[in-house]
């Protein structure tokens, strides 16, 4: 903030701007205007409308019946057991998906970074599941674990005849976790790109100093990868906490409208929000729920940013000082 006010003061107090600078400023705002206008209309104003809605009983239809509830929606949210159940499910999911999934992806990337025959084929195969469009990929996953028609129960029946585990109903969160592990190829490719950025000289120098491959990995490669890992963790946590489509589609829904038929104890947080708003038309309450979630995400991100100072290694500081 400070440098802006300083910049504005300096440029304006200089009396006249060079035509070059003036044109640059004009061009800057011209180039960013689609984003700025879109940001105002589709992000900033909706954020404000949403926040205001969260203090009302708005049902999506009648503005005339609208009543100011102050903080009652928030109070009700914290009194509802669905909030805690869905938060618990979502955190368990995220904890299993992000750290464990990234660890798998990193190990896989590291193993596929060495020279070997068929390397690019294996890379492509492990990458493929992550590029499948979500709504279809989750159906394929559901079919694999289907109680009667699934390959998994058929396979287990070879050892224990008559295995009929209702995977989706009894191990719902685990199914979603494993679905996301199935799609870890996206993270793997990013780690592969990061690994290719590790200078060969550094590895060689460490090997000459007598480090074995495990030591090279932990004291040379891993520190250089920490910025990539950090990036993956932040976006992974934000993404995983918002799990919605795959949970609804895996459980199945009833009717043409896509009403969620899921019992409350299987709710993910966003499924809870979705069903409140779009199944029961409780807009005010649903938006309040989404703001509680927003605050949780912000707190988690700030914790990650603060702790990153102690474990993320930056070789060169970024120019401009804008990227953190």
């Amino acid at each position, binding site marked *: 903030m400070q440098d*802006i006010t300083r910049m*504005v003061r300096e440029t304006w107090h200089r009396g006249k701007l060079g035509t070059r600078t003036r044109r*640059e400023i004009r*061009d*800057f705002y011209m*180039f960013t205007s*689609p*984003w*700025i*206008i879109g*940001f105002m209309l*589709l*992000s900033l*104003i*909706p954020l404000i409308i949403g926040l205001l*809605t969260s203090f009302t009983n708005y049902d999506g239809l009648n503005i005339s019946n609208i009543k100011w509830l102050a903080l009652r929606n928030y109070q009700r949210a914290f009194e509802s057991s669905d909030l805690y159940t869905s938060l618990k499910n979502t955190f368990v999911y995220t904890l299993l998906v992000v750290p464990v999934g990234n660890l798998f992806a990193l190990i896989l990337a590291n*193993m596929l970074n060495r020279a*070997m025959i*068929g390397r690019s084929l294996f890379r492509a*195969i*492990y990458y*493929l599941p992550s*590029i*499948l*469009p979500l*709504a*279809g*990929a989750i159906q*394929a996953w559901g*079919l*694999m674990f*289907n109680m*009667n*028609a699934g390959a998994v129960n*058929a396979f287990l*029946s070879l050892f224990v005849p008559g295995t009929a585990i209702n995977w989706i109903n009894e191990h719902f969160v685990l199914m979603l976790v494993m679905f996301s592990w*199935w799609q870890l190829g996206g993270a793997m*490719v*990013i780690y592969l*790109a990061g690994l*290719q*950025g590790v200078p*060969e000289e550094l590895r060689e120098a460490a090997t000459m100093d007598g480090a074995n491959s495990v030591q090279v990995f932990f004291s040379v490669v891993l520190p250089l990868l920490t910025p990539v890992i*950090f990036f993956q963790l932040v*976006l992974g946590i*934000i993404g995983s906490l*918002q799990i*919605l489509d795959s949970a609804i589609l895996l459980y199945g829904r009833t009717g043409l409208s*896509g009403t969620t038929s899921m019992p409350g104890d299987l709710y993910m947080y*966003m499924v809870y*929000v979705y069903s409140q708003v779009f199944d029961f038309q409780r807009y005010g309450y649903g*938006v309040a729920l*989404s*703001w509680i*979630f927003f605050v949780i*995400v912000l707190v988690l*991100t700030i914790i990650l940013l603060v702790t990153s100072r102690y474990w993320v290694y930056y070789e060169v500081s970024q120019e*401009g000082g*804008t*990227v953190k």
Partner: protein
Amino acid sequence: MNHAQLATYPAFARRHKVHISWNHITLYVGFLLLTLVFIMPVVWLVLTSLKLNSEYGTYPTMLFPAVPQWTNYPQALIDRPFFKLAWDTTQIAVPSAILTVLSSSLAGFAFARMNAPGKSVLFVLVLSMLLVPRMVTTIPDFMLFAKLRLTNTYWPWILWGISGSSFNIFLFRQFFSAVPKDLEDAAEVDGCNRLRIFWQIFLPVSGPVVATALIFHFQWVWGDWFTPNILLSSDNTTLSVGLGTLYLDPKGNTLYTLYMAALVGYLLPMLIIFLIGQKYIVQGIVTTGLKG
């Protein structure tokens, strides 16, 4: 450079004789098992799509159909409005991908290459939008679109497309920051304005990034269920929503194997696009320096 050093270079390493040991064999067995795990859901989907509906979910589970029902595919894709839905989805996904990449690359270029008061605040806003959960803006957006009578049209995707995406703005900004200054100076001396510099120099050199961003956005729209589900009615919706209700017999029972054949048809275009674009995608991920 001696021979030992040469051998570590990728181009030469390939010719270097691979020493086969037990370690290698276990490694390959591991990779092959993993391959099986990774492709199994898709293989199983294809196998199921070739069964008779009466063969679906029998006990014991049949691995293969008694007779592969190839006619499931024309029944699923041609006898029902599969291609109509696919065309509707394309009409949403293609313009929205092109618009979002254009808008994001313009903004990314401005953030990377120009100076103006307010720039750093705006860039912090771009980055902080990455932290805002989708639901927090989507519910009010939905209320807004409903008031403007834009639900049941493709306008929301056009508008979201024009406003770009934080993630893509960030990617383009990272990529354009690394382009040498000389390129721009030479063009400026020749009297090119910034829009031409962007269009004729910066956009062409960012080919892999553009391709990656286009493909990922297209894939996202193609696979998105939530947005079309809340914004569109069942007669003009996308494949991801529409497929769920297309394969019912008159009594309302799901024709599972036809549905699975349709799912194969739904996944296939994406697979083809990715196989064609694979080279650019890997390049795009490497060159944008996703490492932050």
